[in-house]
């Protein structure tokens, strides 16, 4: 009857992965936070506020990683018309947007003691801000149609257009930044990093990725169940004495 009626294999697979990814997320985030907050040295220039970096930098990585995954998933959805790809894209976009927002907020918090102001048009932060808008556009477009399939298809095209533009935007923002701030030394991630700093950074990145996997599986499962429910409701409605197959759209 309906193609979402029985994606049982995915649900089984998801249920098998979920405990592991959640476990990895909890452990590595706990260890990462311990190293980040207690077992790593304060920066000789930035002091204790350098610790914000352990959230900020992995969040920035996740923002980019999820957007790339979104575009790859969208390409799969468009080429093979796999319904799970539509669901996955819809499920991951808000997570990516949340990581992007986290990156922006932590960047702003870090900027206050460093630059004495909550926002600086630093090339990296500005690029992340634009990425945030790309996420918002994707989410808004996905939800703007009465027919969820149509929304997913349109959003998929947008994600692919977006991913082509991300490097162009990044390049142009860097270009713009060097034109206006030739002597900028506002680098959030230091080029040479102490191993004691690298450990929490990597642990946090692993934790974020595992968290992303868990939350993604959870969101896809929720969406599958919600659609199943709608299909059941519709079939119930269709069995009523009203015209057998009626209505163009819901």
């Amino acid at each position, binding site marked *: *009857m*309906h193609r979402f009626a029985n994606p049982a294999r995915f649900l089984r697979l998801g249920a098998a992965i979920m405990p592991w990814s959640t476990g990895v997320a909890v452990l590595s985030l706990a260890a990462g936070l311990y190293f980040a907050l207690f077992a790593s040295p304060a920066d000789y220039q930035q002091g204790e506020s350098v610790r914000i970096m352990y959230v900020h930098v992995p969040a920035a990585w996740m923002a980019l990683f999820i957007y790339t995954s979104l575009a790859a998933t969208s390409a799969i959805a468009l080429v093979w018309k796999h319904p799970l790809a539509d669901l996955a894209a819809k499920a991951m976009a808000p997570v990516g947007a949340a990581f992007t927002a986290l990156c922006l907020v932590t960047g702003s918090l870090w900027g206050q003691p460093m630059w004495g102001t909550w926002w600086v048009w630093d090339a990296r932060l500005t690029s992340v801000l634009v990425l945030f808008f790309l996420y918002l556009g994707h989410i808004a477009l996905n939800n703007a149609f*009465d*027919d*969820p*399939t*149509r929304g997913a298809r349109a959003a998929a095209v947008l994600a692919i257009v977006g991913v082509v533009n991300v490097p162009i935007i990044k390049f142009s923002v860097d270009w713009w930044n060097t034109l206006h701030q030739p002597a900028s030394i506002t680098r959030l991630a230091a080029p040479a990093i102490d191993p004691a700093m690298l450990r929490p950074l990597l642990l946090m990145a692993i934790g974020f990725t595992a968290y992303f996997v868990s939350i993604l599986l959870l969101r896809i499962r929720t969406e599958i169940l919600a*659609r199943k429910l*709608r*299909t059941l409701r*519709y079939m119930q409605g269709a069995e009523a004495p009203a*015209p*057998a*197959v*009626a*209505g*163009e*759209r*819901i």
Partner: protein
Amino acid sequence: MNDFAGSGIACRRGERLVFANLDFHIAAGRLLTLVGPNGSGKSSLLRLMAALAEPEAGVITWSATPIADDPDAHRARLHYVGHLDAVKPILTVAENLRFHAALRGTAPDDGRLAAALDAFGLAPLADLPGRFLSQGQRRRTALARLLVSPAPLWLLDEPTLGLDADAQTRLAEILKRHLAAGGLAAVATHSPLGLGESTALELGRPR
């Protein structure tokens, strides 16, 4: 000989299955009328036939070749007249028709245009902008597209809607000529077209 057929077709609109397991066959020179209650999927089937949308399941073939294999070739062989008339209010009747002929790759041909206008009784209105037309006159302009560029397959959605008796007779005549010349047509309609013999496909019945 041309031959248009579909087998095992299912159509989904949004999250609803409009119909499933539908078969049709139109031989050269034949007309298929699609009948059924509102929402039974007549328009949806015409859109599948026009390759505007893809069927959820099943194949549609032209002379035994699936239309999905070469959608460009399929578009070149069909005329689709949907619910909307596609008449620009700012352009005259003749300009509207010339544009649609060009859109289908047909070079402007004044003789053909005059014949099309004449066939639907539009000749006196040729230079009138679309915004001055009545609903029936706009419908006739939309139908006149059928004659400004040749195509073997006509897909018409409620073509008689808003037409007066005279225009309905003209349409029937034009359809007859099209079929006599070996053309094919699928017409969704609630009212009889007055063509006598035709195959009817009933939608919206449990199969």
